[in-house]
Each structure stands twice: as structure tokens, then as C-alpha cells.
């Protein structure tokens, strides 16, 4: 990242990333504006308009309670995206703090990494489910559970980046002239980890949305009447045959948002770190 202008120019030239940005932007607009300006109540039950296919009145049709699907997906999307954002913020703050502690002191490093190994040997989704049961299955509970489940990943990636940066000549130079270790850590090493952190957190945003959808889908995540993409889809599974649109639209909403975030993550990786080959969006 030579200069900000250069960074934005390179982003603009990355077409697939721009597609991602546009999809995400549209999703955000829908998710923010529809619940604000629409006068349709997403939870209002109307037995006269049950399971209506998409029409001019209900552009995505209605569900088995006659509720307008488009409004429900927009309000549910708000929940899903808020959880994604909260997990992204939470893992960033926790991850940076823990990784800095590990990078600061070698003994702490050993303890911390051992603990992270134990947490990583759990499947993150099952861990998140158990933790959701601990913290209540509200929006906040799911956010906290996913944050705890995903923080070890951020810590691991940040720590390895910190360890590499510690060997850099400019860090040695700073040590040689007697700069305090804490200052070195915050002023000279932390900024260097930023590209890695940004890319990692973009992908984590995507995972968090998928994970929330997954655990709400099996019914242990966000609970009705709060709509989320996961539980809207879960409600729709029994209607697959008679009302396939109730499955298609929430599914597409999740897929497109995650796709957009993956496109942005891939693009950021290319722009911020051209040396690495593109490929592994999942690690």
C-alpha cells in the first residue's frame, strides 16, 4: 500500500472486487431502508394472503402466515448482517489484543497458543452452538458465541504475521536505539499486520453470516419472532414443494451476500498483497 490513491485505483481496476462491492452495497441499502421506510409489518400475520407466489403486491411472495417475504428477508438480513459485523469487530479487538500479548512475551505466547490449539481442535460451529446455549440464543448471544469460536483463527494469523515482522531490520533498528518493546509492538509491528487483518476479517464476516444462518437453521440460533436469514429458511423447509419461492429468496440472499464478501476478500488480498497467489478463500 504505497498511498491511499494508489490503493483505491487498484481496487477500482479489480473488476470482480467491484462486483462484490456493488452487490454488498445494494444488500446494505435494502436491509437498511426497507425496515425504515416500508409500512408493511414483517411479523403481521394475514391468513387471507397465505403462500402467495411473487406478484406486484408481494414481490417475493408470502409465507405460510401470509407475511410479506421481501420485508421479512430485509429485516432478517439486518439481523444477519449485524451479527456478521459484531463478530468481525469482536474478533478484531480480541484477536489483536491476544496476538499482541503473545507477540510481546514468549512465555505468554506458549500458554496462549496452547489454549488456541485446544479451541481450534473443536469444530467451530459446534463450539458456537454450545456457547449460544450458554449466552442465550438472542442476537447478542449468537454474536458473542461466534466471536469466541472464531477469535482463535484471527489470533493465529496475526501472531504468525507479528512473528515475521519482529525479525524485520527496521524492528531490530528500533530495538537497537532503545525504543520500548510496547512502543515497537504498537507503532512498528501492528500497522504492518493491517493487510493480513483486513483480508482475514472480510472472510470472517462471510463465515459469520454463514454460521449464523446455519445455527439458526437448525433452530438453536436467533429465535422467532426475530427473523434472520437462517430461521426464515428453516421455516420454509417444509414448504419446499408447495411454495419453493419461500426457500429460494432467503437462500439467494445469503448466497449473494457471502459471494460479495468473498469477492471483496479475494480482491483485497490481491490488492494488498500481490505476492500471494489467489485461491484459498476458506482458510
Amino acid at each position, binding site marked *: 500500500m504505497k498511498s491511499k490513491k494508489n490503493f483505491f485505483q487498484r481496487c477500482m481496476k479489480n473488476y470482480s472486487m467491484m462486483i462484490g462491492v456493488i452487490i454488498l452495497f445494494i444488500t446494505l441499502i435494502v436491509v437498511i431502508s426497507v425496515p425504515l421506510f416500508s409500512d408493511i409489518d414483517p411479523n403481521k400475520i394475514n391468513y387471507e394472503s397465505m403462500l402467495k407466489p411473487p406478484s406486484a403486491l408481494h414481490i417475493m411472495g408470502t409465507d405460510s402466515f401470509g407475511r410479506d417475504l421481501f420485508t421479512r428477508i430485509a429485516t432478517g438480513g439486518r439481523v444477519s448482517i449485524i451479527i456478521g459485523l459484531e463478530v468481525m469487530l469482536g474478533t478484531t479487538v480480541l484477536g489483536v489484543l491476544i496476538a499482541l500479548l503473545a507477540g510481546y512475551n514468549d512465555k505468554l505466547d506458549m500458554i496462549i497458543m496452547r489454549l488456541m490449539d485446544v479451541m481450534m*481442535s473443536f469444530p467451530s460451529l459446534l463450539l458456537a452452538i454450545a456457547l449460544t446455549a450458554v449466552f442465550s440464543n438472542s442476537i447478542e448471544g449468537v454474536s458473542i458465541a461466534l466471536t469466541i469460536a472464531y477469535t482463535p483463527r484471527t489470533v493465529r494469523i496475526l501472531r504468525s504475521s507479528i512473528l515475521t515482522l519482529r525479525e524485520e531490520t527496521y524492528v531490530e533498528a528500533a530495538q537497537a536505539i532503545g525504543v520500548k518493546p510496547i512502543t515497537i509492538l504498537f507503532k512498528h509491528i501492528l500497522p504492518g499486520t493491517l493487510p493480513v487483518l483486513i483480508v482475514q476479517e472480510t472472510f470472517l464476516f462471510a463465515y459469520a453470516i454463514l454460521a449464523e444462518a446455519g445455527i439458526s437453521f437448525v433452530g438453536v440460533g436467533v429465535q422467532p419472532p426475530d427473523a434472520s436469514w437462517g430461521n426464515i429458511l428453516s421455516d420454509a423447509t417444509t414448504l419446499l414443494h408447495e411454495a419453493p419461492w419461500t426457500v429460494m429468496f432467503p437462500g439467494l440472499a445469503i448466497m449473494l451476500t457471502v459471494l460479495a464478501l468473498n469477492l471483496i476478500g479475494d480482491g483485497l488480498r490481491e490488492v494488498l498483497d500481490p505476492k500471494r497467489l489467489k485461491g484459498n478463500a476458506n482458510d
Partner: protein
Amino acid sequence: MIPTFLMVAIVVFCIVNIIPGDPAAIAKGNDSVGDINLIRERMGLNRSFLERLGDWFIHMLQGDLGDSYFLGRSVLDTIKARIPVTLSLATSALLVAVIVGIPLGILAALKPNSFLDTSIMGFSLIGVSTPEFFLGLILMFVFALNLKWFPSSGYTPITESFIKWARHMILPAMAFGLGQSAYIARLMRSSMLEIMNQDYIITARAKGQSEVVIILKHALKNAFLPILTAIGMIYALLLGGAFITESLFRIPGAGALIISSIRKFDFPVVQGALLFVAAAILIVNLIIDILYTFVDPRVRFETKK
């Protein structure tokens, strides 16, 4: 591995036992005459947290995971019936992922940035972005409800009838495995691209080796190494994430057991099942490490020293 497993066991116990919820109250709901304190005592809930942890831990080391609060069976028996189901689902999904992912990755890497490459990578990006339950619902809609080729849900043990098992397993395995195949294809492609630029490939080309031999004999073997680690990770992911597919296709696996047990606060079962899944994942990692020494002579050399 063993210290990690013991720590995992303690963490499992701690997390499960801080879940707010009173199993005794639920048990009392079933028989109205019971005294709640008596039920608590019978469940061992009247003892302190540390006492229970110590007790559970010592019994766990002896292979006894306690009894389910509600099922009237030992945890071990309950899980034993479920583990093969989850294993067969995760293994079939892994097979789908490998069989689809690796050839696609190689094809894409043969002509980088060609139309074929771009379309395979485009599809794979869509693949990693699609939740398995959405893909599962689409497959169910097309192949079970409309074409009626496969049953839409249920499970038959492989020991009972292989054909019935396969018919039940094919849609869940595709739903669960195709997303991972997209990930494998991406990894395989980047690994192949890296290898194809190595000096020894250029040497092989310079001495006039045919392209087919170069790819099959020289490139694939080395490109496969990073994939092996990824396959281990994916298998772990499949074992741990199976509960979503199990719940969609109504497959009575270990994941589904964890979900239903968490709901009724059947803590011994949750602990036992979580422990089993974690152990399975640790074993998968161990197997991958051992396989490495066979596939990559460099690793073996280092361990001998």
C-alpha cells in the same frame, strides 16, 4: 495429542455445565410426583462443580461417560449408535468433494486465465458462498420432489442394505460435499500453478517430455501435498458441521443428537458427543500427519534426525 485431548475434555465439561438451564426441572415435568431436590441428587447435580468435573473426568478416562438424564441409557451406547451415521455422511461428502474438486482444479490450472479456468473458478466461488442447507434444499426440490429419483430424507444403515443406504446418502453427500469441492478446486489450482513454474518442470519440458507425463508424473505428486492437509481439515470440518445436513435430511447422526440434547439440557450426552467429535477430529489430524511421512520423504527425514 493426548494432553490436548485432556484439555479439550475439561473445556467441554466447563462449557456444557455453565449452560443456564435445570435438567432436574425438565425431568420433574415428566413425572409430577417427584421432589426436585431428590431428582437433583439422583442426577448428581447437588454436588459442587469441581466435584462433578473430577468425577466425570476420572470416569471418562476409564471409558465411562455416565448416563443420559432422559434416555435411560448410558451415554456411550447412545453415541455408539449415532457415530457411524455421521461418519458415513462425512466420508461420502469428502469423497464427493475430492472426486469433483481435484479434477476441476487441475483442469483450471492447465490453461490459467482461459475461459475454462475462469468459469471453473467462478463456479467454485459460488460454491464456497452457498450454504450447504440451501444447496441441499435445491437438490431436494429437483431430484427428490420433482424427478423423484432419490428419497428426500431418512437414513438406512449401510450394513442393512448398501443400495438403500446409497440412495439415501447421495443427496446429503452432494449438498454437503460440493461446497467443499469448490474449496479443493481452488486450492488444487493454485498448488498446480505454483508447481508448473518450478525448475524441474521446465527441465522436463526442455528434454521433450510429453505434457501428459509431466502433469501426471511430475506435477501432480507434488501439487497434491498441500491438498492432503486441506483434505484433513475438510474432513474435520465435515465431521463437526454434519449436524446441519443431518437436520435438513433427517439423518439420525451424532450432530443431530447434540442439537436435540442441548435443547433438553441432557448434559452428559452433549459432553460425550462433543468429546467424541473432538476426538475424531484429533485422530483425523494424526492420520494426516502419519500419511505425510509416506507421501513426503522430507518429513520422514526430519523426524528420523
